């Protein structure tokens, strides 16, 4: 990674694979993914259903191990379930889920919910614990009175703030956020996004921000990556990603977003039709996963999986067409 060489990498993923056995056959959820996240960076991972983005996030936090490839956290191999990870590692990597309602135990008070990670990761108890709990709830901008409430008593946005507080409590350096705002209304999404940005700047955190919402990613993350059927199609600095999308899938996705104003329409690639449906991941097409829908499909695409190529500094595309172009220019 030429441009980012100056910054330290906090997370490096190479050739990552994950398969699940189902009744109908083997489901290849992640089919060989490479990317890296820098310290204090917000990295957006975008994709539709079946893209494998959530599976990547799950492996990073340790829900399960991979079936191939490597995950390095500050140089340390972390590719194994959380149960087998060190305490320190568990503390460093935290997770915020999509559904705030389901992530909080309805039979526990907010205080109990926030106390758990503090007890487990920082070994606090007694007065120190109480103080830390209060500090946490204030850090996310909620009043102390909330500590005695049950999750049902507070709104969706506030529940999500508690989830964020819970992730921050152990004092981590890396947080995986899987669709953290998708279940919330627009006006509340903005508040949560703001809070996330604020905390990231304040504490120098690194985020892996997983979502299907391209507009959100456009405004929130430093670098963007897009996945389709388990493969990483393209990644670049956000501005570059959105102004010069190269991968045909990226273009199709951007062209499909319903936007609110003429001004935004201007930012969409024109003359790109949305065709077809996402194939069932159990029956992945050979070669490039996108070839069945790609308007620029060549013969090679049907049999040979493409390789990630740096097309311009910091801008990587996994596509035979662009690999050819880059090779010619080299």
């Amino acid at each position, binding site marked *: 990674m030429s441009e980012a060489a100056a910054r330290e990498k906090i997370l490096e993923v190479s050739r990552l694979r994950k398969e699940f056995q189902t009744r109908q056959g083997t489901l290849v959820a992640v089919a060989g993914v490479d990317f890296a996240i820098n310290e204090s960076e917000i990295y957006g991972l975008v994709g539709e259903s079946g893209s494998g983005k959530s599976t990547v996030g799950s492996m990073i936090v340790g829900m399960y191990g991979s079936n191939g490839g490597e995950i390095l956290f500050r140089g340390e191999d972390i590719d194994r379930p*959380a149960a087998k990870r060190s305490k320190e590692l568990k503390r460093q990597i935290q997770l915020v889920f999509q559904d705030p309602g389901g992530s*909080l135990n309805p039979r526990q008070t907010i205080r109990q919910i926030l106390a758990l990670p503090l007890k487990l990761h920082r070994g606090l108890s007694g007065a120190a614990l109480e103080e830390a709990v209060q500090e946490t709830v204030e850090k996310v901008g909620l009043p102390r009175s909330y500590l*005695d409430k049950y999750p049902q008593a507070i709104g969706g946005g506030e529940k999500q703030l508690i989830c964020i507080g819970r992730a921050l409590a152990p004092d981590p350096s890396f947080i995986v956020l899987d669709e953290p705002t998708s279940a919330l209304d627009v006006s509340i999404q903005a508040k949560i996004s703001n809070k996330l940005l604020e905390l990231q700047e304040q504490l120098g955190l690194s985020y892996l921000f997983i979502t299907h919402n391209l507009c959100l990613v456009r405004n929130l993350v430093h670098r963007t990556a897009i996945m389709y059927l388990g493969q990483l199609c393209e990644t670049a600095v956000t501005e570059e990603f959105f102004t010069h999308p190269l991968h045909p899938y990226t273009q199709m996705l951007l062209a499909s977003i319903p936007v609110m104003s003429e001004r935004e329409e201007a930012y969409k690639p024109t003359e790109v039709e949305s065709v077809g449906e996402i194939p069932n991941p159990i029956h992945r097409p050979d070669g490039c996963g996108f070839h069945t829908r790609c308007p620029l499909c060549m013969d090679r695409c049907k049999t040979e999986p493409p390789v990630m190529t740096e097309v311009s500094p910091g801008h990587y595309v996994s596509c035979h067409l662009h690999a050819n172009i880059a090779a010619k220019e080299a």
Partner: protein
Amino acid sequence: MSDKQTEQGRPRLERYKRQWHKFASNRLSLLGLVVVLLLIVLAVFAGKIAPYPEHAGLYLDFQSANQGPSLQHIAGTDEYGRDIFSRMLFGLRVSLEIGLLVLAIGVPIGVLLGLIAGYHRNTWIDTAIMRFTDLFMAVPPLVLALVVVAMFTPGFFFAAIGIAVAWWPWYTRLTYSLVTSLSNEMYVKYAELSGAKSRHIILKEILPNAISPIFTKMSLDMGMIIIIASSMSFVGLGVQPPAPSLGSMVSNGIKFLPEFWWIPVFPALFVVLIVLGFNLLGDGLRDVFAIEEL
């Protein structure tokens, strides 16, 4: 509509108030509750309320035998001259005590096994416990209870043990399925990822969310347990004479039909009332908790 709209004040209190309101809005559930409370009062104060408490033990008075319902004997007297109503009250006490004892033994064992099996789902622990449970479930409860009693001596205590032995598997099954579905909840996964110990996860994260269905089942079970206990007394392997037991009162009284009908009929009706009360209460509880889960 956000749930925020309707929750104010002290949270736990509010929740209980709302549950009560939901429960009380169903007349049948209220009826069940009232009946059960009444029965408990009758059982606890049987000694004070029964007009002839001594009739609950050894008593003979052939002068007053086989008398129909009257002002002195509300439910009549039996072949030994004992007041049936008083015996019914003490029989009630015995029935409730058996029910409580069975639940006190069977539920903790069943739930504990279910928690362990469910949490260690798909391991040898799961298989071992659940197959062991299946063994016990293969035998009808009454038969199993009778077998246990026959191994020892008939009487109150072993009757309770016998029924408990037959009863715990159902709680294991219930708890197992509850734990299995709750294990998929995000907050449980979070606790696991954070490295919480199994004990914490089972007791603090899973169990509090599983309590409601277990509680409901306990209430619904009371009726069934009392019937089984009565059946055991009916065949003579439950509570032994002269201690009063609703089941044996019915079985002994059958031969006096139809002239001295009151001897079996009142105790039998009483059993019906008890079972009905607990069933209505249990149904009401189930409705309340079901809605709350939503």
